[in-house]
């Protein structure tokens, strides 16, 4: 069974002459242990897709299933709990909370989600793999771009979600770092059995993907 599945999803913004169809009849699915790449130029609808798949907004029509449960019409509170427990976000500008150290970013999750987070041993191993084990007491402003990216990935994984959604994760990285991050996502998917969905227009990530979807003018086509 797919961890996340979208069926006939449409998203329309505005009405009348101002109406914009951001997503048109989208069908999509992703399974555990796989990396799925969603590619396309700016304005293709990638961010809208991410917000609907991540339960940040509701589709105009269609169904969104997470672990087999339709989330298209759940309440704001249920949506909140879903994001906290099942979905990890890695955002474009890393978006770590500036006044919290790397360690405190995890503690914030502990404050709102008391159970089910990664235990210390797994977390230590993950931080080691990410190469930021020695930086947990640093503030985001004291880290390089690459280190912030890794810290953001660790934060997204800390709540032990089934799905990892990443928005342009290599936007500001050089080729060497792109390869490292691509390999990292591949390993995370395989070793931790996550469904990793990367929204990007960076073709350098294609070699790490199990499936590739192409988006253009709100339509999605499976390429691989």
């Amino acid at each position, binding site marked *: 069974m797919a961890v996340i599945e979208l069926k006939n999803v449409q998203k329309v913004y505005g009405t009348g002459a101002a109406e914009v169809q951001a997503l048109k009849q989208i069908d999509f699915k992703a399974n555990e242990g796989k990396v799925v790449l969603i590619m396309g130029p700016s304005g293709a609808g990638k*961010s809208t897709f991410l917000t609907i798949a991540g339960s*940040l907004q509701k589709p105009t029509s269609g169904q969104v299933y997470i672990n087999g449960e339709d989330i298209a019409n759940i309440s704001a509170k249920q949506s*909140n709990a*879903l994001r906290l427990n099942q979905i990890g976000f890695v955002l474009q500008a890393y*978006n770590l909370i500036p*006044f*919290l150290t790397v360690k405190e970013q995890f503690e*914030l999750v502990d404050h709102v989600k008391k159970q089910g987070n990664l235990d210390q041993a797994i977390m230590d191993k993950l931080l080691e793999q990410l190469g930021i084990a020695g930086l947990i007491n640093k*503030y985001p402003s004291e880290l390089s771009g690459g280190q912030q990216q890794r810290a953001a990935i660790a934060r997204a994984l800390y709540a032990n979600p089934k799905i990892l959604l990443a928005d342009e994760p290599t936007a500001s990285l050089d080729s060497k770092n792109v390869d490292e991050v691509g390999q990292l996502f591949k390993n995370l998917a395989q070793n931790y059995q996550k469904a990793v969905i990367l929204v990007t227009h960076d073709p350098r990530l294609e070699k790490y993907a199990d499936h590739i979807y192409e988006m253009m003018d709100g339509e999605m086509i499976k390429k691989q």
Partner: protein
Amino acid sequence: MFLAIKEIKREKLRYGLIILMIFLISYLIFILSSLAVGLASENTQAIESWDAKQVVLNKNANVSMSQSLLTKDDLSKTKLTKNEALLGQTPVVAKNSNRPQVSAQFIGVKKDQFIYDDQELIAGRKAKKDREVVVDQAFQTKGYKLGDKLELNGSANKYRIVGFVKNAKINIAPIIYGSLASWRKLRQGMPNIKASAIISRNANYSYNHANSKTYPIAQFIKKLPGYTAQNMTFQLMIGFLFVISLIIIAVFLYILTMQKMHNFAVMRAQGIPSRTLVAATVSQSVILVVVGVIIGLAAMWLTAKVLPAAVPMSFTPQIILSGTCGMLLTGIIGSLIPVRSILKVDPAKAIGE
């Protein structure tokens, strides 16, 4: 609380400046409140020490004891119990060749009545003869000693200080307690006068014969010269300070919240509930106010220690409690203004930025 404390710790300068402002406002509130209470107390100290509930004055005296004169005829129907006392008041200038002049209020009382009985001596004894007086401790502060002789309003008679009493001020002037007979001499030229007023500790006491009229003590205090205007001025200033602190806290928290909207959107996208973010903002405000007020209280305590006794400042537990509660309330109200913006944060805004 977690987010609130972490942010304050990280942004020390920013939050330090807000604390500085809250400290300055609370310090000013404590100073003004202490001065207001101190001055009000110096207006009414003696009245409170008498535990007066009703006062009988001449009805043409505009509720002013120093203007009131009750004659034998006015008092002809009085039945005084142990809760009533006759009293004569007149302003005097006290002189002694070796001491500074003091503007005071002479209060003549009868030895067998409660105002005489209740005098709280801090030195010496009570006046037993007509030429003996007991004076407020303010005389002691000005260098007067037991045994000093006072010349009152330039009269030939001298009055010997035999005791000092505490809490003996009326209308900010220190009191010289003497006998009613002495008071009559000081008001010479007024035939048939018996007293200025009857003071009663009985809330139901009433006497309205001839020119006499009974007033509740609250009305009497309200009519003390300058008392109401002075209190209202202080209340207005303190009220404005609370409003200013409310505006400062609300504006600062609103600006800080607006600057953090993207962070809030990111946290909301992560599934952090709105109530956690609201609680962080409110608790942040409470922490800032508590720290600012504690520093304000410490500064006020030091100020009260350092200021000379001549400054009529009364830093009471009631001021500490009401000032602290008032500031906390303004802090909480101020923090609720940006809450609306926090509740409206769209987590989808975290994507693509």
